């Protein structure tokens, strides 16, 4: 199983968990980032996710390799949806198994934060009045060579 992938179809979370499964791992920590129905006081009807596909796949894989090295007791998997998603849909998913729960929580939160800030993915909010807006949150950085 790839540690990171972009997905244009609905995530099969049961299947992802089965693939992460490991009888030596007592702790499984999951993050589901779902489309909310509001943002900064406005009613949101959906989110349209775009990516620089080649770069996002590469940066995501590289990031997961780094996270794996930083959290050696854990196994970490992340998926991010692309395309138009309705409210409630899981847009971003991270699963971590470990023998130790503190490590699993730390790795999961670390992965969520870093995928959000380091992978070239953008979301456009669609509002209930039919207007839209691109969200721009974190400036990407070139990694030191």
């Amino acid at each position, binding site marked *: 199983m790839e540690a990171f992938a972009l997905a244009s179809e609905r995530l099969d979370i049961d299947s992802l968990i089965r693939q992460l499964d490991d009888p030596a791992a007592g702790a499984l920590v999951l993050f589901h980032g779902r489309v909310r129905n509001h943002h900064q006081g406005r009613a949101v009807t959906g989110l349209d996710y*775009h990516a*620089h596909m080649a*770069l996002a796949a590469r940066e995501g894989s590289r990031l997961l390799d780094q996270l794996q090295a930083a959290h050696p007791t854990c196994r970490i998997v992340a998926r991010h949806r692309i395309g138009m998603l309705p409210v409630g849909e899981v847009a971003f998913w991270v699963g971590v198994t470990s023998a130790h729960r503190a490590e699993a929580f730390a790795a999961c939160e670390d992965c969520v934060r870093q995928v959000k800030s380091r992978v*070239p*993915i953008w979301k456009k909010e669609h509002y209930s009045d039919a207007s839209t807006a*691109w969200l*721009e*949150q*974190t400036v990407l950085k070139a990694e030191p060579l």
Partner: protein
Amino acid sequence: MKLTVCYFASMRDLAACDRETIDSDATTPAELYRELRTRHPFPHRQSELAVAIDDEITPWETPLSAEAEVSLLPPVSGG
């Protein structure tokens, strides 16, 4: 020098295209972006963007070579 420039998210909307091939004398992405701001109503300062050359995020002063594909990357909002 012929260059391909790729736009994403809000910059794609403002450029009204995914990508365009242009003839430019720019020797770095920094010079290229100054030139592109005269063609498109991009509001971003250079410091608010990142740039990738041939699918690798790179410093703004990296030398450009002919046929390079340059991606302008506004602040990300995944998750």
